[in-house]
């Protein structure tokens, strides 16, 4: 039995009895022990996973009804609440926090008998693109552990890539699912805003963030999306999607589809290996029968400034609740005045969270609001209208997920603006609320390159079909770990 199978293959093997849930979960836990010293994808691991696996096997043996995940080990980004397990957001401020309830996405996975194998590392409060800003230490890229895995859902991407689970849930505020998917060579989907419930996701920027699945294949991502999507009474921003089967007709192909290549995302600043891989992907899409044309979304060049203005403003408001009284770490109250205590306790936020809250407070201050925040909101609206126009001409858009290859841990950590600019190709999907997916496409110098598709709102089915068609043409090696 190999751990390097897809979730779909796992389900087949459990169903036909060629592997048991216990056997697979036990082997996964062994793998975690073996690779975690190098990868550090997890903040915590579920100690009851094996017991849960045995219970599912027992149910299968007596032909009792078992949920569609059949004990599949899934990791959950540690900013998504899991009852009875720590949810730390990779922050000292929540280092001991145990959520009293499950996020809707977690309860939906549990109701289908998925096993939450562990909580995945992230940049503190999901603010970052490299997973270096975790209070618990950075995550290594399974393709070369000296390199960053992308972020902020770096633990999610790395855990799937390093064969420590079959699928994962991350959150994507500005590319945080797609960036690690690209850097770790897995598939990652950011759904339409409102398609997946955010109830139980620790908020950072409510108006743009979405929970999304990461897995080894497009089919697996579609399978997880079937479970977690749809209206949730606990989150009134969720949409009623009519519960389509996203995994059905994945092989419909892209023949006759019109695909726009976003000009602003393949020009200046893009690594030459990434550009060459993107050109080859476009040629392949044409060979698969799609018509590819260049298309301009010129407002995209302002997306980074708009995104960081809006996200920082929302972050400074959302993180005001961490006063170390309602949530917090062990820090004695005695000898402190109320405000001094809170400021002292909050001084333990990490550098990136502090930086974003400073920026958020700055752009919302009197005198600057119109100059930055209001303007950013107008840019957001402009991006949305330009994308609406683009989708009148084409069915899908394509671009490289990340403009550069994964880089060494520590290489850019002191240069926040350079790190922010890495999100240039992913941010528009969040600002406009449209779905986007990253698939592993090639390797250059042993490091992964991902290709990204965008579709119009609620067009996940079309998006997954295109991603499936291109992904099927790839033949990438096993992760060298």
């Amino acid at each position: 039995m190999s751990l390097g199978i897809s979730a779909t293959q796992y389900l087949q093997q459990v169903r036909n009895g060629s592997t048991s849930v216990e056997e697979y979960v036990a082997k996964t836990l062994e793998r975690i022990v073996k690779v975690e010293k190098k990868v550090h994808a997890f903040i915590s691991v579920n100690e009851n996973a094996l017991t849960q696996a045995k219970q599912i096997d027992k149910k299968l043996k007596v032909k009792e009804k078992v949920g569609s995940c059949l004990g599949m080990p899934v990791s959950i980004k540690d900013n998504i609440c899991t009852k009875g397990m720590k949810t730390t957001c990779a922050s000292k401020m929540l280092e001991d926090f145990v959520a009293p309830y499950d996020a809707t996405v977690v309860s939906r996975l549990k109701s289908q008998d998925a096993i939450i194998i562990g909580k995945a590392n992230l940049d503190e409060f999901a603010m970052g693109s490299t997973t270096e800003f975790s209070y618990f230490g950075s995550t290594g890229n399974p393709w070369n552990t000296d390199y960053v895995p992308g972020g902020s859902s770096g633990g999610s991407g790395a855990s799937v890539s390093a064969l420590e689970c079959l699928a994962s849930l991350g959150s994507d505020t500005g590319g945080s699912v797609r960036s690690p998917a690209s850097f770790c060579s897995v598939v990652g989907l950011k759904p339409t805003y409102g398609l997946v419930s955010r109830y139980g996701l620790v908020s950072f920027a409510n108006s743009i963030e979405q929970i999304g699945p990461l897995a080894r294949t497009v089919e697996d991502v579609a399978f997880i999306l079937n479970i977690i999507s749809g209206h949730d009474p606990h989150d009134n921003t969720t949409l009623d999607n009519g519960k389509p089967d996203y995994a059905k007709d994945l092989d419909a192909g892209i023949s006759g589809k019109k695909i726009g290549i976003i000009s602003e995302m393949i020009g200046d600043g893009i690594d030459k290996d990434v550009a060459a891989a993107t050109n080859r992907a476009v040629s392949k899409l044409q060979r698969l029968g799609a018509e590819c044309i260049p298309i301009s979304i010129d407002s995209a060049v302002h997306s980074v400034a708009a995104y960081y203005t809006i996200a920082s403003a929302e972050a400074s408001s959302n993180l005001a609740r961490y006063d170390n009284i309602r949530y917090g770490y062990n820090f004695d109250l005695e000898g402190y005045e109320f405000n001094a205590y809170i400021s002292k306790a909050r001084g333990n936020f990490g550098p990136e969270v502090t930086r974003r809250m400073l920026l958020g407070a700055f752009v919302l201050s009197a005198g600057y609001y119109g100059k930055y925040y209001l303007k950013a909101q107008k840019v957001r609206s402009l991006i949305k209208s330009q994308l609406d126009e683009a989708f009148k001409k084409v069915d899908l858009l394509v671009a490289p997920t990340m403009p550069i290859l994964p880089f060494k841990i520590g290489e850019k950590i002191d240069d926040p603006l350079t790190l922010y600019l890495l999100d240039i190709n992913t941010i528009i999907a969040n600002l406009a609320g449209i779905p986007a997916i990253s698939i592993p496409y090639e390797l250059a110098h042993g490091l992964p390159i991902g290709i990204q598709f965008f579709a119009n709102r609620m067009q996940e089915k079309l998006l997954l079909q295109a991603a499936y068609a291109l992904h099927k043409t790839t033949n990438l090696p096993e992760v060298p770990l």
Partner: protein
Amino acid sequence: MVKRQEIERLGDLIKIELKNPEKYVKQVEQIIDYFESLDKLEISSDTILTQELTLDNLREDKYIPYDEKLIEKLKHTKENFAKAPKMI
């Protein structure tokens, strides 16, 4: 230009004791300089994306008993109250 006093004032505003304000001065200034591109941008439309939330889509407002005492999860408590530092 962002000054140290401005960063310290923002630190007070967001209630974070900044151990090394100087470190943030240069970084925040560099980022704000980059944000300046927004101010220079001419956008004729005043449209802003809004999200409409209708009141007929709210969950049922019903009492659901919760069997755990949440107060016990706090770090500092006294009897049935959360304990906070002195106000004066």
